[in-house]
């Protein structure tokens, strides 16, 4: 299907600055900081005391009480975001062929709180029999998309791609391909990750978390903030969306994947994977570098990432990189792991629709190694037509997603 166009018709967000895409957007435009002292973990022994938690999340608003106890927080987030995305898209699920409705998700840690709960139960009681029998079944990350599919009645492709912190982009990219290949009519795509003590401990031990504020692209940036959330989009072929008079929010123009093949936890300082991913995304989308209006950066706030990401943009976009704006949503919501690029895709859709670029907050001191316009501290109006969302990850996974304003 060479002329197939793929569009986004719905989105849903669960984030530390608000559950629901409208609340998320309103808070993000104001430059709200969702990184706060942590309440779900004892931080006494940690250098970093802050992170992003979704404090307003009530699973009972999305799930029957009897189901809540049978699934982890990642599944609950994903279902909440998916239900919002479906509602906004106006899809009437019972009018769709269920075998042509797919669910494609990404995650970093899956349901780590389930494993945490089980292992702590074992240690607390010195007995594995203290582990609730139904707990192990809630752990494999495969349950996240199957819980979504079961809740929404989808019976098509149901898959999860745990490519760590780039997973949301991988999932949306695969949705794009499933639609192009004619394997689905509608795909619910996105990512979900709950706050994880494993991730918080690990990033602390790697000295990758900041004891300060998260300050992407700032000279004094000192690390990332571990966070949680979910983002989901409804993706479908344009003809399918038009036929049902769906609200068309944006067009998925293409994506690109690559990897660094360098180190498990450190990006290649030459940006080899990111350069390939961005170049492939532009080629896949048939978009020239000079047409790009904005980049939503991976922008974690670590020294290595932000410097390398600047290099990637300069290498691929050339002169255009000096004038293009590239901001970090993570400055506000922290790093939501496998959900990050899915939430950022939702943010990009909202930016395209509102012609507003979200800011990089906590920015004070320019870094000559990050000499880009990071939209410091305050959201800014701009005529946005084509935007890119970058996501990079452990194991050197690199991805870029190209979205465009739908113009008929």
């Amino acid at each position, binding site marked *: *299907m060479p002329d197939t166009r793929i569009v986004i018709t719905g989105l849903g967000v669960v984030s530390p600055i608000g559950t629901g895409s409208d609340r998320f957007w309103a808070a993000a435009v104001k430059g709200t900081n969702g990184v706060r002292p942590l309440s779900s973990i004892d931080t006494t022994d*940690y250098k970093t005391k802050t992170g992003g938690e979704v404090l307003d999340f009530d699973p009972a608003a999305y799930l029957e009480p009897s189901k809540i106890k*049978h699934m982890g927080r990642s599944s609950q987030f994903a279902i909440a975001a998916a239900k919002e995305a479906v509602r906004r898209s106006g899809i009437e699920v019972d009018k769709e062929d269920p075998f042509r409705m797919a*669910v494609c998700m990404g*995650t*970093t*840690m*899956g349901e780590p709180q389930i*494993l945490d709960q*089980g*292992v702590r139960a074992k*240690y607390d009681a010195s007995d*594995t*029999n203290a582990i609730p*029998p139904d707990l*192990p*079944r809630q*752990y*494999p*990350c*495969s349950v996240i998309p*199957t819980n979504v*599919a*079961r809740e929404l009645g*989808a*019976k*098509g*492709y*149901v*898959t999860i*791609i*745990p*490519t*760590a912190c780039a997973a949301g982009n*991988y999932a949306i990219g695969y949705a794009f*391909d499933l639609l*192009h*290949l*004619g394997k689905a009519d509608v795909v619910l795509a996105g990512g979900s990750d709950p706050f994880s003590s*494993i991730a918080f*401990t690990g*990033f*602390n*031990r*790697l*000295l990758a978390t900041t004891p300060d504020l998260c300050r992407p692209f700032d000279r004094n940036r000192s690390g990332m903030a571990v966070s949680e959330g979910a983002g989901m989009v409804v993706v479908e072929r344009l003809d399918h969306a038009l036929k049902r008079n769906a609200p068309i929010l944006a067009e998925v123009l293409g994506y690109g*994947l*690559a*990897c*660094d*093949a360098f180190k*498990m936890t450190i990006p290649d300082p030459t940006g*080899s994977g990111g350069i*390939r991913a961005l170049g*492939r995304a532009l080629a896949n989308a048939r978009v020239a570098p000079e047409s790009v209006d904005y980049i939503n950066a991976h922008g974690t706030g670590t020294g290595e990432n932000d410097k390398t990401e600047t290099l990637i943009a300069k290498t691929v976009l050339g002169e255009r990189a000096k004038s293009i704006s590239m901001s970090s949503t993570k400055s506000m919501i922290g790093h939501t792991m496998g959900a990050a690029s899915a939430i950022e895709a939702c943010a990009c859709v909202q930016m395209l629709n509102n012609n507003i670029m979200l800011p990089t907050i906590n920015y004070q001191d320019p870094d000559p190694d990050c000499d880009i316009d990071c939209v410091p501290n305050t959201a800014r109006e701009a005529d946005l037509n084509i935007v890119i969302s970058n996501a990079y*990850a*452990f*194991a*050197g*996974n690199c991805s870029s997603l190209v979205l465009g304003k739908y113009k008929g």
Partner: protein
Amino acid sequence: MSGPKVLITRASAVSALGVGLDELSANLPGDPGPGSVKAYEFHELDRETPCFPASRLDPVAVLGKKGLRTKDWATKLLLATIELACKDRFDETEGDGKPGICVGTAFGSVQSIGDFLSDSIVNGVNAVNPQAFANTVINSPTGNANIRHQVRTLSTTVATGFNAGLDALLYSYDYLRRGYLPAVVAGGLEELSYYAIMGMQRSGVLSPRGLIQPFGTAADGFVPGEGCAMFLLETEESARARGASPIAEIAGVANAFEPGTFAGAWASGSDAVRYVMREACAGAGIDPADVGFVAASANGTRPADAMEAAAIAEVLGGTPVTAYKARLGECYGASPALSLACALCDLKAGRITGVPAGYETEGGINLVVDSAAGAESGFALINAFSCDGNCTSIVLKNVP
């Protein structure tokens, strides 16, 4: 569906039945039975637990000593299998010409994840080894493989539980048909781990008798196993351009979801199971009656086995059926990839390796016991049906 033919030009497997495809083929008709495990490095199970470990693998013999110190067992299984399958393909290609890598796994290394967590609980968060954190992401084995072979083209992990090994092949099949790459090394991986076995024990899915009897009338659960099977998938154009001889073709694929399952309770009338078997055959351009044999997903979990038997009987009638898990154990994400490797061995050997004799089996399907002559059609249907509801079928076509 449009797109180029997708061929298998290399394959390898590591499992309880040996290291490499030749050992798998030679040992498949034998009946080694399960081994057992109790002690792990930091933990001990409360009893000797029957399982099918890949104990014949010596990672150093396959991979050399360099770089293995910080690698967990799942990563070693994957690296060894890839090394055996197609090290030379990685060595003789550069940059954007290298095949991608796509691995299906249910857990990644849950041993690494659990040990990291245990260490932080027992010894304190500031005592854990930061380097060990890298092994806690589910895509860690795949990442280690792309680093070892300097692969910058594609490195993806798919984690759809029991189906992951086949779904990684589906992902790669789609990636090739979209024209993004000419070749991807894809398959399934799973390690035996303390945490996974403990979880299975608590869930009550393991056979109390320590026997795995797919489609058995007295089956009472499964015996866990481990392993890895990887395949070099190439477009026909790529294989032809480099003069590679295909050994099989991924002729048809299908994936669907059965919402009627929850916590392992399959609805006997599952239409998703029937749907994927029919769709995979349709994608291959064959009638279900043309399938030479079925490599079933059955693992001795009676409701799931009964559901699959009823669906096979309805869709494929009297087509011969086997269940390789009887000889390999339930290897979770690796299982369907190992089943595909076994089917490939059987297609090449002109045989169908059935389930071992010695237990009473369900009626209604043409279950092969011991072995039978291979069908002439050259098509095998590989099934993967997960307790989560994931359903995947692939039609494998032998290329003589």
